[in-house]
């Protein structure tokens, strides 16, 4: 399905469309009761063996097969109206092979034995044809077979089992709260994803996984009819690797700051109420004076800066040049890693890659080439110590096993290196958000993610946000607008002088991170506690088009 058709199907129009780019696994619509059925594991094993045997018989030296059933549910509302309720399903099989030393891939949505065998044959034929263009054969890191194993996202409440009416009532209540507190328009949505993935390989693994994700979100617009000016305020929720329990908030899940911030659970109604008020405040806020400011960045904002300036440049495939034509390469070249002294950030900066973190978007038991997932350091005490990689690139950094970072967004997409959760470790000393603000003479406190852009080697970035508060002499001095900051990744992380303690640690995340050709979407979380960055360049983004 083309992205445009999906937007039409959800009835979202242009304002929401930008937020939907790269939602994975668009497929066919199905009725609600169908989503609760799962495909029998024994059948999946039989189908997988057909593909593996066919590939082997045609000359493949390695093959893996993924049988995927990708379910999405979207409930979309605006103001007092339900725009659309869509259930989609995408079910099919992708087979990847190595033949004559090169990769080949083919996929089919016909799951009869002949079609599966034919897909495997096509994959082998492609591999053989393209092997003429290889400079060296594929070198796979060894991987033991796990036999028949399974893994499930540890959800408490399957969102697909929650009645549509309950979801509609929640969203219409959210819209009502926002409108009553001053919003001119609101679009609210629930995005639910269930990936039922089956992986099998000639290494002897048969892995069945059931992965769940949820993203409740809203987008408020406030218009000043006389001036024609408008401001927006987007949700402060995070997409999570959780069930519907994410929306069952408890008092301990809230952090009180200038606005309520959410940790692990989300009170959508309260956030919408605040959002309506704050969109109005933004219209009247002072336009920022450009210059150098100390920034206090909330995790609901900082996750995106981490994603772009730490997550992407530590992807080994980018470092090596595999993404040079589209996503780009990386400034974190191998010589910087080999030196063991490349100062990525200040000494308090520690980043961990983790595919096991409970509640995170990236958590799975095994990746899409059958490697059990784990956790490792990327930046240790400010120094670059490792990358993220997969089986056919692990040997380049001297590893004899993959780090389990392989992912495909659909059965019809070929798997490749994708980002694990990459998180900033909280500060070791006890410090709250208020403690950080108190120390700042001239600064800006930024909450929520906004506009984002970074170059193809991940040096120069620019970020906006949702809420901006001026800090004067250790105190919040009112709201600002038209704020964006620009920095160089290495200079920025070296300007990190304080990080709040683990009681403030929260996850943010990307529901649809794009990479690859044809583009694929990945979901990934980034944890952080509120952090301070000294003397960052802030620009004013206000313009007049006459």
């Amino acid at each position, binding site marked *: 399905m083309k992205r445009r058709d999906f937007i039409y199907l959800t009835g979202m129009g242009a304002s929401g469309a930008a937020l939907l780019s790269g939602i994975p696994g668009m497929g*066919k619509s199905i009725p*609600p009761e169908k989503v609760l059925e799962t495909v029998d594991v024994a059948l999946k094993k039989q189908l997988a063996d057909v593909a593996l045997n066919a590939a082997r018989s045609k000359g493949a030296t390695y093959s893996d097969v993924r049988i995927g059933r990708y379910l999405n549910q979207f409930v979309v509302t605006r103001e007092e109206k339900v725009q659309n309720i869509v259930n989609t399903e995408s079910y099919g099989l992708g087979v990847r092979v190595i033949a004559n030393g090169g990769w080949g891939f083919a*996929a*089919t949505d016909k799951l009869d034995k002949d079609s599966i065998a034919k897909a495997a044959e096509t994959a082998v034929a492609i591999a053989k044809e393209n092997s003429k263009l290889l400079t060296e054969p594929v070198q796979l890191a060894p991987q033991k077979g796990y036999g028949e194993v399974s893994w499930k996202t540890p959800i408490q409440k399957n969102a697909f089992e929650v009645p549509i009416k309950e979801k509609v009532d929640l969203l219409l209540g959210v819209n009502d709260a926002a409108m009553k507190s001053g919003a001119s328009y609101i679009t609210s949505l629930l995005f639910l994803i269930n990936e039922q993935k089956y992986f099998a390989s000639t290494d002897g693994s048969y892995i069945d996984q059931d992965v769940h994700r949820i993203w409740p979100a809203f987008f408020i617009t406030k218009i000043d009819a006389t001036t024609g000016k408008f401001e927006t305020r987007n949700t402060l929720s995070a997409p999570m690797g959780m069930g519907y329990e994410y929306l069952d908030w408890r008092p301990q899940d809230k952090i009180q700051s200038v606005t309520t911030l959410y940790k692990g659970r989300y009170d959508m109604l309260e956030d919408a109420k605040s959002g309506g008020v704050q969109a109005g405040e933004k219209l009247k806020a002072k336009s920022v004076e450009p210059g150098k400011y100390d920034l206090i960045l909330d995790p609901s904002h900082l996750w995106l800066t981490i994603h772009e300036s730490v997550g992407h440049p530590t992807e080994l495939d980018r470092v090596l040049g595999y993404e040079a034509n589209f996503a780009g390469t990386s400034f974190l070249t191998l010589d910087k890693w080999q030196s063991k002294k490349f100062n990525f950030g200040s000494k308090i900066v520690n980043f961990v890659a983790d595919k096991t973190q409970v509640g995170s978007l990236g958590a799975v038991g095994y990746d899409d080439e059958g490697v059990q997932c784990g956790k490792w350091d990327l930046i240790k005490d400010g120094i670059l110590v490792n990358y993220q990689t997969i089986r056919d690139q692990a040997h380049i950094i001297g590893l004899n096993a993959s780090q389990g970072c392989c992912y495909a967004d659909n059965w019809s997409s070929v798997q490749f290196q994708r980002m694990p959760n990459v998180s900033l470790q909280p500060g070791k000393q006890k410090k709250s958000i208020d403690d950080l603000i108190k120390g700042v003479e001239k600064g800006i406190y930024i909450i929520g993610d906004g506009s984002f852009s970074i170059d*193809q080697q991940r040096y120069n970035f620019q970020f906006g946000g949702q809420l901006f508060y001026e800090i004067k002499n250790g105190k919040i001095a009112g709201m600002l607008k038209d704020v*964006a900051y620009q920095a160089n990744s290495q200079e920025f992380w070296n300007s990190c002088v304080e990080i709040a303690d683990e009681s403030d640690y929260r996850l943010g995340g990307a529901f649809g991170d794009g990479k690859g050709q044809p583009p694929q979407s990945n979901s990934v979380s980034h944890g952080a506690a509120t952090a301070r960055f000294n003397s960052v360049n802030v620009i004013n983004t206000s313009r007049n088009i006459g």
Partner: protein
Amino acid sequence: MAILTKDEAHALLKKVLSYSKADECEVNLNSNDSANIRYARNSVSTSGKVTQSQLVVSSAFGKKLGIATINEFDDASLEKVVRRSEELAKLAPENPEYVPFLGPQTYPDSMMYVQSTADITPKLRADLVAQSLNVAKNAKAVAAGFLEDNTSFNAMMNSKGLFAYNTSTNTNFSVTVRTEDGKGSGYATRGYNDIRKLDTKKTTEIATEKAVKSANAKGIEPGKYTVILEPAAAAVLLERIFFGLDAREADEGRSFLSKAGGGTRLGEKLVDERVNIYSDPMHPDLPTSTWSGDGRLQEKISWIEKGVIKNLSYSRYWAEKKGVKAVPGPDAAIMEGGTKSLEELIAGTKKGVLVTRLWYIRDVDPQSLLLTGLTRDGTFYIENGKIQYPIKNFRFNESPIIMLNNLEELGKVERTVSVESNQNYLLPPLKIRDFTFSSLSDAV
């Protein structure tokens, strides 16, 4: 599913509709064969072939709509999918914005399908990539590229007698060539309906020349510069205007096309009077679908004429509410140009910056359509009509509306591909004064 003929598609969809018991029923059918080769580090990396079909059935009872789809085409499956969509419609809440399906329409036959592209073989794909790799290897440079081709058909029919059918083919190719030391990088991209027009060797030669010439770039101060945007660079800025032509957003006051005090800027002169932008599904160099996803006829439409906003796009609901014609949004856009080549635009430039490609474009302010992003893969300083030396990449903060008010000159139109959306356009290179570069980037 193979590519069905018009008669075969008609018979299949008619059979699906025969199962309907709803007040209204509409059926859309799509089948797509796609294949690609990806390469990097002068070697093929991944490649694949995927076939997918989808039948979408929309059933309505009053203002309650249900949608279900299937990818099996035996009679039992076809009846089952109709029943499912009817069950969903009964469960759905009433949509006050529901508009009954369209009646019969007349469409011209589209020109998107070219048999030579549909007939592409794995060997031809590999040969086209080999030609690209040879150019880079001979220049002792490193290529990363992507070649993809699609062959598809779309058909729709509804209970009011509408029937529409189109076939199409397309191929997109892009290549980034880097010098071995990583100090220079160049890019080129092409898109065609006909694979025979694709010259991967020539395209890679352009990227290679840019890579070699862009090595060891000098840093110059950020600020306002005259720029020449090659069509691929212009595309990613201009398409933000094309995507933002929705009348409802403008009427609601939340678009760059909204007017202070209410209403839209339809009929107002918003940009330089030399700016003419239109869409035309029957343009021989960029044919697109002759009908939109909901069956509306796609016609030649002027969006900006002599700098004036001439038309906005409407959903059928919003058009009915506003009492205007429901013009669907464009599938591609065409901007009229001039007669000068890129070289001639450079020759007529006293001081300026040549931009090959722009990257990571994001909205900063929807009110002014302020965008940010960076130059990439070939940025050069021009003085006295000549390229003098390569320069380091810049971040820009600029609105395409302001940019089209600062228009100096338009070059000759060519077909290009947006690196952001993968859409094809017909666009000229643009010479713009006072383009705002706000900081330097070390990226190559």
